[in-house]
Structure formats: C-alpha cells, structure tokens
C-alpha cells in the first residue's frame, strides 16, 4: 500500500527493551503500570504499540526517555539504545541522549508547547543547546524545518495559541526531527485532532520517515492507523503485552481475544461495513502469562483453556 508497509527492519535493534517493569509507588500501596514488557525496534522500523488508554503505553514511552515523574519508578528491566544502557546514564549523558538520539511527539501539541515562547524560540532552543549553533544559524535552520513540514517560516514569530491545532502538531513534529534522531516516539500524535488533519499529519510523518529513515515507536489506540503505518506491532493490556507480530499478521489473524476485540472495535478504512464489536462488559484478564510463539514471528499470551494461569473473567462477575 505504501512504502512503510514494506519491512526493511534490520536485525540490529536500535532500541531493546527487556522485562521493563514500572510501578507507581503510593503512600500505602504500589501499582504496577508496566509489567515485564520486552520488545525491540530495528533500524528504520516502525513499531506500533496498541491498547486502551491506561494500559501502560505512554508509561513505556516515558520510560525510554526517562521522563517518568514521581511516583512512577522503573522497578526492574533494562532499556538499551544502540548498545548503551539508558537507565545507567548520568544526568548529562541523559540530557544529550534526549532529542539527539530519541525524540518524541506528545499527545497534545497545545499542551506540549510553551505558551509564552514563540515557535521559533522553542526550535532555536534545540539547536543552540545540542548543536551549538549561533542564534542566527539556529533561526535559519528553524525556518527550514518549518518549510519541511509545510509551514510558512514567517510563523517562527508566532506563539502557539496563534496556530491551528494541525499546525501546532506539525511544528512539534518539525522540532522532533530537528536533530535527525534515530528513534522517534509518537505518543498518540493525532488523538486531539480531527480526522482530516489526522490524515495530513500521518502522511507527513510517513514522508519524513521515508526521507530521514528514523525508526518509529508509534503509540495509539487506533488500530486502523496502526496497521497502516507499522511494520510490527504489539498489543498491550493491563501493563502486559498480550500479542506481538507483523502488523499485517495481527490485522489478518488476531489470536488473543483482547486483540480480536480491539480489532472489532474500529471500523476498517476500506471494505464492506461490518458491525462493531468490543470486549463484552465486565470481561477482564488477570495474571497474563508470558508470550509463546503461536506461528512463526507471531507471539501470543496463552489465554482461556490454553493455560490454567490465565483467567478470563466473564460477565458473571
């Protein structure tokens, strides 16, 4: 369908997450938001992470950049980026690692832009801090970046509130690719936007990805978008990955009941109309076991009768 559908992920992973566990430490009890999650992303690969809100997707994204705020803590596991241990970085190493190696587009562009600084100043910030360019040179490059995402460079002098929602998100994307990072994390980049703008933004990201060749960690709950953009994907539920495989395989042949429900909850972009289905009321999964290979390259957490440990709680509850 598009270039991004062709897998050209290499065997050398850019990002390797192993057994990542994140806990929210409360006054009286702790909650596990991400539970023993492992995945890796190859060079130039687009890896999708799907699941309902609150399943731990964003927590993973923030863990990779070590942006977790109290009371969230990484309790176990490792994150390595290009062979470097991200969790062992000193504050200064971490500061350089951020944005140069991994950049991130946040959910809401309105909230992720500083309301009292111009777009230009917020881009110049990046260049002067990381690349050491002069202000003038930084401004010139900032203008080029805006052109790259088809925004008039005159907008450098605009404040965030003066731009439309789509423009703001494009500006944030421009900022994200400013230093040509090897991994771009997209944390639900289009949820706050209307459908038409959504399509524009996604096209923009695809185009940039083709040009610059970075890897992408794409987080969304929109399955159709995800299948369209990703090479491989993982489905999360309650802090655990329940299924991971090539995006096409998940799409064509979802195996875990939760994945099937998630697929059924979104209308396909093309094809005949089908009634939407979701997870029945009150259905919850507990104690999700580790993944097993159900088909070549297709890993699924055992469920139902397959494993005694998996409990599928019915609507009877």
């Amino acid at each position: 369908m598009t270039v991004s559908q062709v897998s050209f992920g290499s065997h050398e992973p850019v990002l390797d997450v192993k057994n990542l566990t994140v806990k929210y430490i409360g006054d009286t009890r702790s909650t596990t938001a991400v539970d023993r999650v492992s995945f890796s992303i190859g060079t130039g690969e687009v890896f999708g992470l799907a699941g309902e809100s609150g399943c731990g997707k964003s927590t993973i994204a923030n863990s990779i950049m070590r942006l977790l705020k109290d009371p969230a803590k990484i309790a176990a596991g490792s994150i390595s980026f290009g062979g470097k241990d991200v969790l062992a970085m000193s504050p200064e190493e971490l500061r350089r690692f951020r944005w140069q190696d991994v950049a991130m587009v946040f959910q809401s562009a309105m909230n992720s832009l500083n309301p009292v600084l111009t777009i230009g100043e917020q881009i110049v910030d990046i260049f002067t801090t990381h690349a050491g360019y002069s202000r003038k040179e930084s401004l010139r490059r900032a203008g080029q970046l805006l052109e790259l995402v088809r925004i008039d460079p005159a907008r450098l002098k605009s404040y965030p509130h003066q731009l439309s929602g789509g423009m703001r998100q494009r500006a944030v994307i421009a900022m994200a690719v400013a230093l040509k990072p090897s991994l771009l994390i997209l944390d639900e980049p289009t949820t706050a936007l209307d459908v038409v703008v959504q399509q524009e933004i996604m096209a923009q990201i695809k185009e940039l990805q083709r040009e610059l060749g970075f890897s992408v960690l794409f987080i969304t709950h929109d399955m159709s978008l995800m299948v369209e953009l990703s090479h491989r994907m993982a489905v999360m539920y309650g802090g655990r990955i329940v299924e991971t495989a090539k995006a096409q395989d998940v799409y064509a042949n979802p195996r875990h009941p939760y994945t099937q429900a998630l697929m059924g909850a979104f209308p396909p972009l093309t094809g005949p109309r089908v009634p939407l289905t979701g997870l029945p009321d009150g259905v919850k999964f507990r104690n999700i076991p580790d993944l097993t290979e159900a088909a070549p390259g297709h890993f699924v957490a055992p469920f139902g009768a397959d494993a005694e440990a998996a409990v599928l709680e019915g609507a009877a509850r």
Partner: protein
Amino acid sequence: MRFILRRLGFYLIAFWASITLNFLLPRFMPGDPVSRMFARTQGKMQPEQIEALRKMLGVDTRPLWEQYVDYMHNILTGQMGVSISRFPTPVTEVIASQIGWTLLLGGTALVFAAIIGNLLGILAAWRRGGAIDSALPPLLIFIGSFPYFWLAMGALYLFGVVLGWFPIRHAFTDGLEPAFTWEFIGDVGAHLLLPALTIVLVSIGGWMLGMRNTMIATNSEDYITMAQAKGLRPGRIMLRYAARNAMLPSVTSFGMSLGFVVGGAMLTEVVFAYPGVGYQLLNAVQGLDYPLMQGLFLTITAAVLLANFLVDILYVRLDPRVRSN
C-alpha cells in the same frame, strides 16, 4: 489593547466608588464627628474656611445631588480642603510632602520581598523536598504570622534601642538638610533599612509560597516534560519554561497585594515615626482631622490603582495570549 482599556475602565469605576464612599460616609454615618472636629478648632479658622469644610463634610442644606456634583468637581480639581491637624496647610500639600517617603519605604520593601520571595519559591519548587523547600516555608509562615507593626516594634527595640545599630525614628537625622549628597543619601538609607526589613520579612513568605505552589502546578504541565525531553539544560527549563509561566499569576497577585503592603507599610511607619502617609494618617485620626483622612484615603487609593494599571501593562508584555486577544 482591549484588555488594557477594560482594565482602565475598571480602575476608573473603582476610583469613582472610593470618592463616592468618601462623600457618603460623613453624610450618612450616625453621630456627628464633624461638629466634634469643629469644636476642637474653634477660633483658629477663618469663616470661609469653615464654610468650605462644612460643605465638604456634609454639613450642608443643599440637595444631595447638588452637593455630590460639587464634591466631585472639588476632588477632581484637587481641592480637598485644609488640614485641621496641620492648620492651615491644604490637605494636598500635606500629602505631597509625605507620599514620597511612603513610596520609598513601601516600594523598596515590596520590590525586595517580591524578588527574593519569588526566587526562593522557584528554587523550592524546583528542588522538591530539598533544604529550601522543607525549612523555609514553615519558618516564613511563622514570621508572616506576626503583625507588621509588632515585628517592627520588636526590631526597633532589639536593633534600635538595645543594640543601637540603627536610628529608631524619622526618615533622616533631625537637622540634616535634605540634599543630593552621599551623606544625606546614606543617612536616609540607614533610616530606611530597619522598617523596610520588617516589611520584607513579614511579606516574603506569601510570595514564596504562592510562587512555589504555582511552580509545582506548572512543573506537571506537558510543556515542561517536552522541554526535558528536548534535553535542554535544567537551568533553562527552570527559568524559561517553568518560572516564566508560573510568574504570570505572581504578577497578578503583585498588583493585588499592593493595597495590603501599603497597609503594612503604614503601620510600620507609625512604629518608626517614619514621616509617610501612614504616620500622617495616625496623626489625622488622633487629631480628628477628617479632611486629611479623606484626602489620604483617596491618594493612597489612586496610587494603588495606578500601580495596578502599570502591573496590567507589564502583564500584557509577559503573556502573549492576552496581547493578541
């Protein structure tokens, strides 16, 4: 621009309200303070002066609206009558000779308290649970719990009377001729230090806590996370991203607290016999000098409103969202 005009309109209404309050008070209050006042000044005043004051303070047989128009006209043309306690000096002259000292004392204290308090608040919020964050707030709340004037009394007693480090009264040494010489300026500074310090001490806690709490709220904003993700240096994130935004409510409360600080400065002036409007207000109260009281109230109100207006202009400079709206 529309924001500025709206604020200006609001200040005009506020000023009109205070003039009207001034007009109504002597006319509708029970008792007859005015005749008490005149009883005291018998024989000193010229008949026409008495007549003018009577009119101003409502001993007047004309219809109310006519008195009101007349009163408004007088106030707006700067005719506020003569002072009783400093007879026969006009009220405007008495105020003009005092207000500079109050501006000096209140202004110095306010600026220092706001700057130091806000900086401490920024640092406390940035290092949650650090030394500044855990030790200072309770201490400053405790100091801030003392009445301004009581802390001034304590400071005066300790540093002025017992230790003798600072002069204990007035704005400059008696007999010194006001002039732009180092000697005089130094003398004024020495007299200013203790009263200003007490005001700063009492008011600094409010600034710090206000800034700290807004900073903490700001720190959880997405744009702070984004700035961290951008790998900016911590100092830059703290100042250009967090503090720069947290400052906005602080600027607004700067205007709001002006009136409060003026009150505190006035009481402090009383303790140090500092020749500003607060000290004068006490004299006016004790001397039943109603014209002077009213004039002082209007002048202080006008000054506070004007300062608020300047703060609004500053706010527009600081917040682009208000500017374009």
